[in-house]
């Protein structure tokens, strides 16, 4: 187990380093604002509030949280201490609801939407890319430009197109929200059916945009592998084509797993923007509302949770990679 332990220990340490960096960034960015950050944060939201007592309360609670009169290190410890208790502060726009509460309500929606969508898109893209590399000829010639074009459509663009075509022109699917309006979330067939109907459009828009980039990457990877010496050698040996394709696919897949780990941040970003087109009750819509209403605690909290989500995804992918990469396995026998 020596090789595995070394690999995983390294990955766990790296996860905590990135997590720490994310927390530091979240802590430092508002403090880098010119002027008094607390006054700035509160003044952006205060324009719409008429109750001076509420503004005062917000100001004081934030002054305490930021503790600007204290040294930076101490401020940082207060901040981390709050975080460890799951305390992300109180939302301005939905005062006095805690930010953690709002994010907790939105998080399941985002995970349930993006995780399957990105995985399905990644898988479909890889299969199409591998097919394009293997079949070549007409399939490759028609598929690749389509993939390139689809890869160029931004996430929100795909979302708007699907929404306008299937939601409005054809009227097949609902255009907004996570479930029917007026329905109270509870466990019943009607509610689940409503959730599934609302799930389609956001899901497919994320799948469709993830396919393009993956297919192009997989195609190049597979072509590269198909030209490798071991393939030629296997052909000379008379090994069946089907078996060779299996080898090629496995070898080309490995970099694609790493590729997913490296690009998942970008994919999540795109998917978040797609989410808000459908007013899907996830983190994307939450952060949009927070930005519109100048709700700094909510923006900062959502940003942190998104980062942690992505970091976790990267960590899990790293772990999976450790199991499937023969090179990591090989170190077992050293």
């Amino acid at each position: 187990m020596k090789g595995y332990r070394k690999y995983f220990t390294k990955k766990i340490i790296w996860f905590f380093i990135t997590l720490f960096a994310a927390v530091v960034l979240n802590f430092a960015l508002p403090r880098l604002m010119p002027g008094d950050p607390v006054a700035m944060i509160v003044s952006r939201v205060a324009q719409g509030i008429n109750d001076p007592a509420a503004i005062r309360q917000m100001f004081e609670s934030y002054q305490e949280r930021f503790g600007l009169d204290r040294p930076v290190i101490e401020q940082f410890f207060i901040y981390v201490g709050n975080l460890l208790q799951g305390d992300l502060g109180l939302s301005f726009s939905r005062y006095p609801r805690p930010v953690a509460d709002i994010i907790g309500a939105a998080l399941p929606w985002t995970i349930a939407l993006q995780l399957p969508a990105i995985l399905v898109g990644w898988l479909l893209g890889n299969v199409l890319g591998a097919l394009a590399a293997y079949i070549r000829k007409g399939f490759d010639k028609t598929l690749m430009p389509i993939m390139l074009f689809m890869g160029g459509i931004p996430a929100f663009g795909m979302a708007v197109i699907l929404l306008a075509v299937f939601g409005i022109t054809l009227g097949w699917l609902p255009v907004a929200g996570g479930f029917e309006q007026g329905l109270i979330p509870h466990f019943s067939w009607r509610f689940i059916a409503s959730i599934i109907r609302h799930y389609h459009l956001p899901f497919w828009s994320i799948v469709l945009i993830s396919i393009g980039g993956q297919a192009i990457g997989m195609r190049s990877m597979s072509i590269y592998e198909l030209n490798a010496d071991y393939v030629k050698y296997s052909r000379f040996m008379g090994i069946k084509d089907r078996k060779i394709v299996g080898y090629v696919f496995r070898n080309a897949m490995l970099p694609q797993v790493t590729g997913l780990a490296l690009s998942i941040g970008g994919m999540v970003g795109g998917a978040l923007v797609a989410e808000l087109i459908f007013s899907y009750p996830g983190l994307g819509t939450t952060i949009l509302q927070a930005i519109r209403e100048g709700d700094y605690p909510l923006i900062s909290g959502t940003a942190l949770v998104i980062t942690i989500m992505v970091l976790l995804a990267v960590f899990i992918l790293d772990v999976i990679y450790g199991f499937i990469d023969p090179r990591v396995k090989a170190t077992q026998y050293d």
Partner: protein
Amino acid sequence: MKNTFKQIFRTANFLIGFIIISIVLLFITIYPIFNPGNPLRMIGQDSFTPPGTYFSLYDSLDVSHVYTFRLEGADDNRIYAKLSDTDREHIKEWLLLFNDYDDIFEIRAEDIDLEDTEGLLGLWWEHFDPEVRFDNMTIAERRVFARLDVNMDRLFDFYDKEVWMYNPESGESEYLKSVGTLDYVNVSDVANVRILPLGTDNFGRDTLKQLVSAIGTSLMIGLIAGLIATGLGLLLGLIAGYIGGIVDDFIMFFTNLFTVIPGIVLLILISYSIGQEHRGATTVALVIGLTSWVWTTRAVRAQVMSLRNRDHVNLSKLSGHSMPKIVVKDILPYIASYVVMAFILQVSSGILAEAGLSMLGLGPATTESATLGLMMNWALRYNAHLSGAWWAYYPVILVIALISFALNMINTGLDRVFNPQLRG
């Protein structure tokens, strides 16, 4: 060098991409010449005016030369146009109610074609009876149908229309002219005509004009972001790859860090911290550039590391050439093609990043020109997609996709020339 260029221009992918980009650039340079002025001027009082040619109704009455045409089907067209969509819906509604009411009369909802004016009118005249009283129908609702019946008779009134001018000083109206059904004027004789190929947006601004200036701004944002990202990436990659050791570890630590921390989060936090007032197009481009250098750094470093110990580099080292000279003469030429490709991709992702940011309401705060992202943001914020105003968002998506597609095509074309293995 000349040969490489020839080869590049012979690649189909590159050519397609190059032609698309050239057409876009040509269009955004030429269009403002024919339609000058501020692209953000609100010309319309209504939101989301559909595309089409608009001419002043007022001025058209003053056109001196009136022509007479006897056009086939003109009367039919007139009736079709006069029967409004709501009237058609009402006819359908009444017929369906009558279907439930009357035992003999039978019609299904899918048999009623709202576009078929003749059919609709025929059904109406055959069956409409003001005496019929449906259950649960209020008097007001019944009056709607009665009024509709009166209006329907008016569809066939083709009398001349008289135009009178009101004089506020005397408080009297004076007769000007009468307009008959056969009178036509040439649109070019009308004093005020405005062609709006893509209608107007929610603020009543010419969408096409705005789009043209938005493409320019977005391309500029992409270029600045791409230059910064590629420049920074190249510099860091060269330093990390060539010097190696602790410097390499240090740079790679940050590179790996910012690869996993999602760029959108940094973009949101930084853009929000900057504040709406200070966020011009250039600032947004700067922020995008500063958050997207990691990919170039990784790739450049990997290439430089493989070049570092090649014979020609070692020879230069032995000859006592200085480090900058070695980098410029012996390393850069080998990675130049890659850097150009990375730059093209960065431009395209910079445009997309701006669009994403603007959608979140963190786009550039500019009053002089729109960006593609801002146009999308406005269109969706004012529910263009729900009110069927396709002209406010489809062209924008199409342009973003086209630019991105073209840049990707250029890139794959270059890739085929520089990576012969990929040639198919």
